[in-house]
């Protein structure tokens, strides 16, 4: 928690005390910590001069915000139109079985979080998955397996 507190301080320094900076601050915390802890939410809302309910109202509205700790590695599987046509759903189901979690969840050992997205703008390579920042093109379960193993060994 200490870590999030330190990061928080530098985030607050960067933005004026105005409501329109709420989303910026939440994004920065999320980028550095992977999620928004309740303590951070409280302090950010106070700094932005908005009630804490507005903080949660915003954080639950947008898909990119996470209110729970995330796994060490993020797997994103695209379920945009092109990827849907080429079987993106099957990739997600496969991972759900393999990792024994649902989409949006994190494995018990905190190693992997499985998320789905709507179009990564790389439809030529459909179906597309991204492990951390590495794009996998024409993804198959076998290719995903390899990437997950590689990520785990880092």
């Amino acid at each position, binding site marked *: 928690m200490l870590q999030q507190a330190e990061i928080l301080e530098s985030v607050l320094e960067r933005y004026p005390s*105005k*409501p*329109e*900076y*709420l*989303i*910026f601050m*939440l*994004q920065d915390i999320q980028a550095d910590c992977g999620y928004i802890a309740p303590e951070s939410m409280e302090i950010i809302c106070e700094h*932005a001069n*908005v009630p804490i309910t*507005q903080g949660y*109202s*915003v954080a639950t*509205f*947008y*898909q*990119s*915000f996470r209110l729970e700790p995330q796994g060490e590695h993020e797997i994103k599987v695209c*379920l*945009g*139109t*092109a990827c*849907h*046509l080429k*079987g993106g759903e*099957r990739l997600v*189901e*496969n991972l759900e*079985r393999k990792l024994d979690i649902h989409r949006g969840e994190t494995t018990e050992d905190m190693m992997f979080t499985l998320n789905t*997205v*709507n*179009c*990564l*703008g*790389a*439809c*030529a*390579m*459909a179906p*597309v998955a991204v492990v951390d*920042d590495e*794009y*996998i*093109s024409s993804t198959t*379960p076998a290719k995903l397996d390899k990437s997950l193993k590689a990520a785990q060994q880092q």
Partner: protein
Amino acid sequence: MNQARLELMLCGGTGCRASGSHPFKDALAAEITRRELDGEIRIVETGCNGFCAVGPVMLVLPEDVFYQKLRPEDVPELVEEHLIKGKVVERLLYKDPGTKKRIPLMHDIPFFSNQMFWAMRNKGYIDPEKIDEYIARDGYFGAARALTEMSPEMIIEEVKTSGLRGRGGAGFPAGVKWEFASKTQSDIKYTLCNADEGDPGAFMDRSILEADPHAVLEGMIIAARAIGSSKGYIYCRTEYPLALARLGLAIKQAREYGLLGKDILGSGFDFDVEIYQGAGAFVCGEETALMRSIEGRRGMPRPRPPFPAHKGLFNKPTVLNNVETLANVGQIILHGGERYASVGTETSKGTKVFAISGDVNNIGLVEVPMGITLRKMIFEIGGGIPKKRKFKAVQLGGPSGGCIPEHLLDTPVDFEEIAKVGAIMGSGGVIVMDDQTCMVDMARFFMDFIQEESCGKCTPCREGTRRILQIVERICEGHGVPEDIETLEELSVVIKNSSLCGLGQTAPNPVLSTLRYFREEYDAHVYEKRCPAKRCAALLDFKVNEDKCTKCGLCYKACPVDAIVWKKKEVAFIDQEKCIQCLSCFSACKFDAID
């Protein structure tokens, strides 16, 4: 810039990066240094070239030789043969699927030769991270003209003459929108760029931002000048890290060159731009929702009027334009609106960028003159349908759009004509579907998306889309009843007429257009409990058809749970106990041998 003997324009767009352009680039750079060619040969990492299907791609200038599907292993041969001996490496050229001939020059490849590059005129020709290269191709000349030689009225008149209509979906004339905002008095006005690109399966705006970010900035400067605005925001989605990075760099360089900031080009005009990173919500592409989001709130639309040109961001007059709209503006001011209006149809002028994907050979980004037929776009530029399958439908306009069947493929690309056949031009996503696509499943897919993205503010959209989804899901699962179709039609009308914003008003389109052209597929699901395209798992038997099975074993290899029993020269068999109905075997089988 010192002129190199050869310039290697290597694509570094999201597509080519994913297919491995960076390992290739590293190998190429090392080999060029090893052969001591650094002085005469320059590698330029460009933005998206557009031909993502055959990436990584590289264009050799000034010769215009186009190489495709490059691997690090190809480097020694390429350097030795082409860069040193001047001989084109045949095997790395594009091969025409029809004639089987290799085509060396980019402008001879049908994918490129049928296009017309205006909004994307710089893609692949410049390093998007260098402002000088943009300027060398007449960049910021339009802005200079607008700022130093033209009054705001003249700018607006020129844009009106061009007939430029918004490329973000609605097709509203840009000049008219600017005129409204210019006439509103206010201490501050805002100029916004919509780079939210939420339509799943569309990547035009991403590619423009990656390939030519300065063109968008130039458009914003001119728009700002026209309406008298001093502050701009670009609202870009987080899923586009590369576009965000390049935009950030472009803004920094433009400031250094005095093209943003105070007293631009000594004209006394001040304007600056900031990037606003979207937090992931489709509805934020809608203009009023986008403005709320910038204000730090939930991105929910509000009723109009008041229109943003009067009361927009922070309740101040605001103009919002799409990335592609803005990318056209600099050239319009530089060369005049009339030249722009010389291309296109009666009501739709200039060019339009489309992202073609799905079941089509040449997946990628294309820019075509308005008025070209969909058939030409899909079959000549897109190269037709792969794997010898048959065309079934094309989906235009994303979740708010519609499907167009084969017999309407001669419809021209034109806002009004496309609307007439039940789709929309939309932002430019074109999804081609072959005969293995189930249209009911497609409708379900889009409704699922819309239902999820409905912001929940107005009841018809929130509840109505959920009801439609439930019914379509039921039909896909084989529990459809005859009344369902009528209920769908009825619900659609109500949602269309009574929703607050464009999301709800167009939400039933995927269902309506599939019902209109593929009614028999709905009937097969409802009355015969059969999915003709074999996509809806609940309606399939998961049994191998012994007469059709060629004993090839492809299904056996594809099954993720080892539910298929197969030995060489034997018909495959699916163990129903183990089968999880994932459809992998259906996709793998080339002989339609699974029922």
